[in-house]
């Protein structure tokens, strides 16, 4: 598998948001059955630019806004998909998926099975996770765990522009409903991305860094935050095996288990609540497969077990960050207590990564 780290022929540095846009545009060119709809996809803001140009190139039949009716619009996507089209339904916030849970869980996930294989539901549900600047309770949730729970849905969470493009193309070509989660703060981050269409296959985790002391799994934007944490840990001599699962369903447990089999230490960092979350699933599978073989150090991090507050004074403590991740990993690896990475250096590393607003 090629990777987002190295710039080779036919690649340019592309922002995450542009990678998404390019993937959709290329697929719409290739396949007239692909269309893109959802609130505000066709306005001048174009979902932060991620649908820019689609209306001009493909016209209002293939790129259109909807009434504020998320539930029915999800049903519409399902019906169109059953008829052989390939809808991409866009939500500007993952929180709004709660309005269409019935269609997603009771229809999309189940149709292929409960109709005995006689229909397919090839649709992509795009949604963005918001963070910071007072997004607050209802504009900040990462709810992927709910979708991981229900058989029949695929769930993808690319953390870089390369995977964003490759996963989007794979999602559009997939014959199943795919919950495609994006993170608002990743949108401006660049990575080398091939110009040609390509697929990042689901179910293959990406090794972002190789190391021997501790396995860290970082989900969605947390993969990026873990990368910064890993560089802080390097300074105290801890080498991190950093894994980005890329897709959560299917989930590449093989790569994760093989890593923890070596390190016997696992830290999962999620951009979501911990309880019954993606981290719980990963930790449980690791424990099931490796627990019999001797001591195993496991820890999960994620949102604080609270609603997300708007005030930055509290929000700062709501999310894991490179500092708290590094410290947790250090402790898990048996590091001597009291290590305090220089917060300035942690913040610096962090800001270098995110050029976007906070």
């Amino acid at each position, binding site marked *: 598998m090629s990777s987002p780290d190295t710039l080779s022929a036919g690649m340019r540095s592309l922002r995450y948001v542009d990678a998404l846009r390019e993937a959709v545009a290329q697929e719409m060119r290739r396949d007239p059955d692909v269309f893109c709809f959802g609130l505000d996809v066709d306005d001048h803001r174009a979902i932060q630019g991620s649908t820019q140009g689609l209306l001009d190139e493909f016209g209002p039949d293939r790129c259109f806004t909807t009434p504020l*009716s998320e539930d*029915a619009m999800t*049903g519409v996507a399902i019906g169109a998909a059953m008829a052989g089209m390939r809808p991409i339904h866009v939500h500007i916030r993952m929180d709004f998926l709660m309005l269409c849970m019935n269609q997603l869980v009771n229809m999309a996930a189940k149709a292929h*099975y409960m*109709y*005995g294989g006689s229909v397919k539901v090839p649709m992509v549900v795009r949604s963005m996770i918001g963070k910071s600047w007072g997004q607050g309770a209802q504009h900040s949730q990462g709810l992927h765990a709910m979708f991981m729970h229900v058989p029949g849905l695929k769930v993808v969470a690319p953390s870089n522009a390369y995977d964003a493009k490759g996963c989007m193309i794979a999602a559009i070509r997939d014959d199943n409903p795919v919950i495609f989660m994006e993170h608002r703060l990743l949108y401006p981050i660049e990575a080398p991305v091939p110009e040609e269409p390509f697929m990042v296959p689901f179910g293959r985790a990406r090794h972002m860094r190789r190391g021997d002391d501790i396995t860290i799994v970082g989900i969605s934007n947390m993969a990026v935050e873990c990368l910064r944490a890993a560089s802080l840990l390097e300074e105290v001599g801890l080498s991190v095996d950093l894994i980005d699962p890329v897709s959560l369903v299917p989930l590449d447990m093989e790569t994760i288990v093989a890593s923890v089999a070596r390190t016997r230490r696992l830290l999962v960092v999620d951009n979501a609540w911990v309880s019954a979350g993606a981290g719980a699933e990963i930790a449980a599978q690791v424990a099931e497969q490796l627990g019999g073989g001797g001591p195993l150090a496991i820890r999960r991090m994620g949102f604080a077990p609270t609603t997300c507050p708007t005030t930055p004074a509290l929000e700062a403590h709501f999310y894991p960050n490179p500092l708290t991740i590094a410290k947790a990993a250090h402790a898990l690896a048996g590091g001597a207590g009291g290590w305090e990475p220089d917060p300035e250096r942690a913040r610096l590393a962090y800001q270098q990564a995110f050029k976007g607003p906070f």
Partner: protein
Amino acid sequence: MDSPALKSPETLVRLYRSLYLVRRVEERVAEIYPTDRIKSPVHLSIGQEAIAVGICDLLRADDIVSGTYRGHATYLAKGGDPKAMLAEMFGKVGGCARGKGGSMHLVGLEQGILGCSAVVGTNVPVAAGYALALKRRGRGQVAAVFYGDGASEEGCVYETLNFAALHKLPILFICENNFFAIHEPLHRRWAADQLTERVATFGMPARRITSGDIFEIRDAASGLIDAMRDGGGPAFLECHTYRWREHVGPAEDYAAGYRARTDMEEWERRDQVARLAAMLPEAERRQIEAEIEAEVEAAVAYAEASPFPAAEELHAHVFA
């Protein structure tokens, strides 16, 4: 409407054949049910057949219908295979959903039958999505979606009406108003009996038919469907009707006290199966009935003979 065209001998025969098939399949299901060979809840539409039959009679083979968990009539009237239906209800691999869906999830894409759903109202936006695809295809196909008076209360149904009208989708909405959702009468659920007027405000033709008359239903739908094929956009019919049996299961339930048997009897007097039977020459009627009896028995036999799915099938069809 009693225009002669609508009562042409061919039409009469077609309608009676379909009505009788639906009625007899359901009566057989009711007979078999107590033997526990049907391992699935059944929601019979006995008494309500005329709506599905009248409307499906106007549909082309490549048109689409979408029904509910009370979907036997929709399935059969659109040309669904009684064998596959019965086998499905018996939980057999020869069923239309290979035994995985049961009575509430009948499906037949080859005959243009979108899968039924057990969550009330969910089929309505899905059918509209299918209609969106039909419109894009531009072959004059239409979708007809059936749902109950109860379903009309679900938010997603209103949302769908607006969207369908906005996009001029080729879809006929049919509300089968049998005055009850399970045991709850309209007056405990509807603030006002103005559903048809409400739907009209979305800017689509909307008509209420209170007679239960299959010709009136068919005639009303006919013009609407024709216009739809030419890009005229969606339309709506509210059809009054009556469920003769209990909500789920094979029996009558007038003893429960939530409704009066006399209400049913009024509808029984208008029974379209009996009415059309009387309109046909005796010999012709008998022949149709004999043919259908044979078809029904063949379906039951097929269902009996079909094997249960093998255990491995449990894991098939999770992903396409």
